[in-house]
């Protein structure tokens, strides 16, 4: 509870905070469209609007959770933030020693340097570890690339990292196929931490794992955060996992943020109908209230042809005429609580914790 | 569908232009030209040609022109069905090769039919009796067929047919029939000579097709709708013939385009070994004597044949498999 309050307090300090020391990164109007080619001449016939005008900032040492259905653009967001994809427009500022630098203006060498501070954990530990490399080679790779350590020193560094994620030195020479899913994800975490990054972007790090193993990994990430003072961007399509680890949570729909609030606030007092629907479907143990699951009508629209006005209007139970024509603004409805819904102030939506 | 065909056919025109240009460059590669090779022949038989004659010959055949001009002279006749003049045969290229193209196509076509007729039943059998003695035997034979070069098979047949069976295993007709007018007897004589080269040409492809058919059949048989069809109580024959085989045959059609160039290659070699008037013997001779329009046209025709067969295979595939859209 306390952490959440701190964040709210931060927000109350107002806009100046944004450039202060406490912000590690800031994303402004980030947009990514994938062109669709067709035919012999590979003409562009349209765009998959995977990411649309997304803005947020992340404070040092916090965990920002991002939830949304599969295909809503979560992975794209992370990859654009890592500059694995170039954005269509928008910028991302990263706090390097108190100076906010736009990562999209960096050259190759500067970018390589930046990547020491920003690392990523992938969803599928099967695909993210090269099956032909030993654990030593996998975790040691970033260290080698950046010329941090080699030979015996590399070995001892990797051993430390293994120890940190709960594996042991005897695993050094093994190949990924000798490990269980949870252990593989530990290896992936060790690799992400090898360069001592400040922020780790976690792209559904537990979604591919057994429910039982998910908790271990989440706990491990939390322990590491405390120990190393890490900042996380934690993505999931599962609200209950995000709730467990995040200080603030953002909800994504069809490439855009629709709501962003401190976790407790978001779960208790959602302001966007989509959040409400997601919450109603989340299996959180709630002995008091008999919740009714909200079934969203219709299908997820095609991201290459998103609906006009509020993108959610085709499935929203509260939609009115204005929703079809006008794009709702991204507004702060209460301190630290942002949403984009025309009816945010008037609707009274059900959260999960009352 | 029709517009798709038209589009594909129109798309072949630039392809043919590119291919014909490369063909021309390749055919022009050897140092010297037809006149040089004539000179060499004359010299070999003890004669000689003076420089003026040589130049006159060159000028007459247009061999003294720059390559691009010669190329243009060659292709400008294409729309009229004029593929240039064979210097060695002293006749239009088309007249020299028309009949041989016919035999080549006939042999290749029959070989394709043979491959399909043999490989489909064997493929079905092998898939339905996976790892049985018969399956293993066929797959071993398949390997064997895949590994024996076609010229070797032709040589073996030549020796075996002649020495052991005592039949002339080469040519298309028996010597006394070659010049005879067409009759039932001549036709039967042709059939007697035709089957062996057809089989020889088809062996390698048959081995490949059996493999593909077996694999695809196995895949189809494991699919849900086959189980469903069986569960509905349909007779096994119907399940296999009506559902499984129809689906399983698609990969066979999609490799049809790849089989054709192999057939052409094979018809050249088998034609050479078994003295069958395919384009093979003429092509070889035209290459050696640098009869460039003849050699070039044959190389071009084989490539165009490949283009056409790819198109036909695509159309056939689209026809049997409605999931494929015309884009």
């Amino acid at each position, binding site marked *: 509870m306390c952490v959440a309050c701190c964040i709210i307090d931060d927000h109350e300090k107002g806009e100046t905070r944004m450039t202060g020391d406490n912000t590690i990164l800031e994303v402004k109007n980030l947009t990514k469209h994938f062109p669709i080619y067709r035919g012999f001449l590979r003409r562009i016939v349209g765009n998959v609007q995977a990411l649309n005008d997304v803005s947020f900032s992340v404070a040092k040492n916090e965990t920002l959770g991002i939830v949304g259905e599969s295909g809503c653009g979560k992975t794209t967001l992370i990859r654009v933030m890592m500059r694995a994809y170039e954005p269509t427009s928008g910028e991302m500022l990263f706090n390097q020693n108190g100076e906010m630098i736009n990562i999209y203006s960096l050259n190759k060498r500067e970018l390589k340097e930046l990547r020491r501070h920003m690392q990523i954990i992938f969803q599928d530990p099967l695909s993210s570890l090269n*099956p032909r490399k030993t654990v030593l080679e996998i975790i040691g790779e970033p260290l080698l690339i950046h010329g941090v350590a080699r030979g015996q020193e590399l070995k001892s560094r990797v051993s430390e990292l293994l120890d940190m994620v709960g594996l042991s030195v005897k695993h050094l020479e093994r*190949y990924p196929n000798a490990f269980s899913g949870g252990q593989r994800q530990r290896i992936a975490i060790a690799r992400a931490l090898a360069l001592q990054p400040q922020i780790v972007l976690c792209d559904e790090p537990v979604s591919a794992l057994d429910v039982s193993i998910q908790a271990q990994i989440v706990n491990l990430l939390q322990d590491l955060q405390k120990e190393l003072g890490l900042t996380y961007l934690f993505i999931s399509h599962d609200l209950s996992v995000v709730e467990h680890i995040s200080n603030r949570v953002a909800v994504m729909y069809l490439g855009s943020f629709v709501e962003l609030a401190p976790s407790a606030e978001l779960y208790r007092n959602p302001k966007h109908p989509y959040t409400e629907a997601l919450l109603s479907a989340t299996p959180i143990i709630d002995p008091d209230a008999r919740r009714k699951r909200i079934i969203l009508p219709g299908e997820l629209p095609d991201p290459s042809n998103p609906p006009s006005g509020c993108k959610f209007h085709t499935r929203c139970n509260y939609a009115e005429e204005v929703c079809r024509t006008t794009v709702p603004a991204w507004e702060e409805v209460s301190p630290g609580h942002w949403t984009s819904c025309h009816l945010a102030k008037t609707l009274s939506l059900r959260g999960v914790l009352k | 569908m029709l517009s798709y065909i038209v589009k594909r056919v129109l798309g072949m025109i630039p392809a043919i232009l590119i291919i014909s240009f490369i063909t021309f460059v390749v055919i022009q590669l050897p140092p010297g030209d037809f006149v040089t090779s004539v000179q060499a022949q004359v010299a070999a038989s003890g004669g000689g040609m003076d420089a003026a004659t040589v130049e006159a010959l060159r000028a007459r055949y247009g061999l003294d022109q720059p390559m691009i001009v010669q190329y243009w002279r060659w292709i400008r006749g294409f729309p009229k069905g004029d593929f240039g003049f064979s210097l060695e045969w002293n006749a239009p290229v088309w007249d020299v090769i028309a009949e041989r193209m016919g035999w080549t196509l006939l042999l290749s076509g029959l070989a394709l039919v043979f491959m399909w007729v043999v490989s489909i039943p064997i493929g079905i059998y092998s898939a339905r009796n996976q790892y049985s003695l018969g399956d293993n035997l066929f797959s071993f034979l398949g390997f064997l067929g895949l590994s024996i070069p076609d010229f070797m098979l032709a040589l073996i047949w030549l020796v075996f047919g002649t020495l052991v069976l005592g039949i002339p295993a080469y040519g298309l007709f028996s010597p006394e029939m070659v010049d005879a007018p067409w009759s039932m007897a001549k036709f039967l004589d042709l059939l007697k000579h035709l089957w062996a080269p057809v089989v020889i040409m088809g062996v390698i492809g048959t081995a490949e097709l059996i493999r593909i058919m077996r694999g695809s059949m196995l895949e189809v048989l494991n699919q849900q709708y086959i189980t469903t069809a069986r569960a509905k109580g349909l007779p096994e024959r119907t399940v296999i013939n009506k559902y499984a085989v129809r689906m399983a045959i698609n990969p066979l059609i999609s490799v049809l385009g790849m089989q*054709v160039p192999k057939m052409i290659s094979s018809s050249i*070699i088998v034609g*050479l070994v078994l003295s069958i008037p395919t384009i093979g013997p003429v092509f070889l001779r035209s290459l050696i004597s640098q009869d460039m329009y003849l050699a070039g046209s044959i190389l071009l025709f084989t*490539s165009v044949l490949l283009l056409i067969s790819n198109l036909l295979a695509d159309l056939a595939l689209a026809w049997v498999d409605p999931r494929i859209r015309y884009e």
Partner: protein
Amino acid sequence: MMSGMKHYKETADYINKMYNRQSQLDESLADQMRESEKIADATSQWRLMWRKFKRNRIAVVGGIVVLLFYLVALFGDFIAPYTLEQRMTRYSYLPPQRVYFFAGGRFQPHVYALETGRDPITLQRTYVPNPDKRIPIRFFVEGAPYKLFGLIPARRHLFGVEEGIISLFGTDGQGRDMFSRIIKGSQISLTIGLVGVALSLLIGAVLGVASGYYGGWVDNVVQRLIEIVRSFPPIPLWMALTAALPQHWSPLLIYFTITVILSLIGWTWLARQLRGKVLALREEDFIMAARLAGASDRWIIFKHLIPATFSHIIVISTLSMPSMILAESSLSFLGLGLRPPLTSWGVLLQQAQNTQVLLLYPWLMLPGVFVALSILAFNFMGDGLRDAADPYTV
């Protein structure tokens, strides 16, 4: 609000506890699983591949035959009783001789001496073995001088006879021993495939990997190039290209040009295969992970892509050997490929091109048997390798 918050905390704690309990269970489960997977521990890809390959009996046989062929080719000059051009004019068109292993119950390999005569009608030479006159086969005999590996001068041959002739596969019209010539021919037939595959590999791997990895216009150009090459049927194109080789070129130059011509078409298949493989690999997260760790293209290509495609490269190379051997022998057989003094199996087969000669002396066909045998062996071996190559489905 506070009570709600408290409730929320409790719920969270509860979930946490459940999680932890579950996680302990899970850890022990994982341990058990690891126990059972012990065999897989610390096993590199190559060992897994080898283990799987060994189980495929017929592939192993294929591999052994391939090995044997290359060993014979390597020591060919020693194994062959005669040299390539040694003519025994008294024995032209001698049919293969029969070898007898026992004499008077004792192991004593020998052949019969031959009485030569001439058929009064066809005027062909006739050879009648004389059972009373045995010529013993001697091992490590002195014979025609040669250079082992093309370097070391030597005179000893594995076996031979001191008088008469030993000709296991018969002789040709000039009395040259086919057995010796086939062995010598293997040196060229088997290496031209290797060199051709190596060249195709070089072109195909570079273009295929680049095409798959960089995509975009690089891919477009490479794909169009492949389409153009593929729009010619191979044999006619090869024929046209080899026919262009000038008569006066040195044998070595001809040899290498032929390999270049063979790989001119061979690389396309390889490039397609590798491109597909790289396209699949490129989507793997571990490639992205390396990139995001700051790896350069070079690092990714050499540390990840090439090692990952290595087993496939080996399989693809093995499987393209047959077509190389086949193409070379077909072309040489037609008289368009290698020319004497270069002697490959295909060149040897040229004599069989004349129908009348072949029907009289069918053993001239024997080099073709070795073409088929080597192709068969490579096919079996390649098939086994292909099955073994994917111990992990990446």
